């Protein structure tokens, strides 16, 4: 594995606190994931791809922005792997890079309607930008 990828892999494992080697590949996380249809890589694939160091495709995947952080995969994984935390760590690795914000305050006005609660705006900015 290239050094750079190995560092990234260690970083993702460290900040997420997830140990992907605990996964037994049952697929329950993806089976229960409400955003499954919108994702190209699914929760169980995040786990196995981070484990094998195949991280580049994940960094560029739209899946990062489709996860709802609903923690269904976290609570329903029989091995306590907590895939959502891994997805969050990969998303941060992507948006923390300079100029890689997925959404900024400038994008917000066109997304507004008069009923949208503040909670949605602060949450989206926290998820999608640095």
């Amino acid at each position, binding site marked *: 594995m290239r050094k750079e990828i190995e560092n990234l892999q260690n970083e993702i494992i*460290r900040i997420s*606190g997830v140990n992907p080697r605990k996964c037994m590949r049952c697929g329950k996380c993806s089976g229960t994931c409400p955003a499954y249809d919108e994702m190209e890589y699914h929760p169980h694939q995040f786990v196995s791809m981070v484990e094998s160091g195949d991280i580049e495709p994940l960094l560029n995947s739209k899946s990062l922005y*489709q996860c*709802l952080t609903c923690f269904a995969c976290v609570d329903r994984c029989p091995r306590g792997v907590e895939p959502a935390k891994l997805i969050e760590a990969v998303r*941060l690795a992507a948006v923390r890079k300079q100029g890689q914000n997925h959404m900024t305050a400038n994008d917000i006005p066109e997304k507004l309607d008069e*009923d949208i609660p503040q*909670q*949605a705006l602060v*949450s989206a900015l926290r998820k999608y930008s640095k």
Partner: protein
Amino acid sequence: MKVSYFPGCTLKTKAKDLDAYARKCAEILGITLEEIENWQCCGGVFTTARDEIATKLSSVRALNDAKEKNQALVSVCSACHNVLKQTNYAMQTDEEFASRANNYMQLDEAYLGETQVLHYLELLRDVVGFDKVAEKVVNPLKGKKIAAYYGCLLLRPNSVMKMDDPENPTIIEDLIRALGAEAVIYPYRNECCGGYVALENPDSAKEKSLKVTNSAKNAEADIILTACPLCKYNLEKNGADIPVVYFTELMAEAFGIKEDCNA
């Protein structure tokens, strides 16, 4: 009895009614909600990454404020509650995170997660008691079929939230029954409405929300009950054709004080 209260940004703006009903109902039940001074927005979502410190400090400040008053910290919004509880748990269990957060805070005494964090529903169940809630009902909501909508934030992650059985919760149904109405059980009551993805991918949020609404309607619900402004928004925006109501509003109605709150 006095508790510290963290209203959060949305209860000061789009969800003022959720807040007003909560305060009035607490008064009836003999609880004073003391708003934390100079609280700041919780950020809406808890970032699970352990190296994310600065964005969690507004929660740590509120938690420490409650600790200094020796009070529990109560919130009504599902999102605020989720962020406060997860932050508090991290302060209790992640030494490195807690020490870095405390470095920023510069308190006389380090904060290590001492405060008890309660959702308003937990306050009703564990401090007041649903039997006492039932005693205050003057206008029992007889004949109404109500679908409790938990969504994701109230219950998960269960290891931290510890509010109820995450797959078979009863806390909101117990409140509904205490208010004299009928609680309707349906499969999607603890699935996500789409949350903040409403901004990134509205079609995705629509699909998630419709599943919840249809599931409640299939169970013949007249009303969907929620604690979360974003759940309410997503369900209403995406074709809910039955009312989506805050649990505090329903309580105010049963207590006969709904009109006072609108004043």
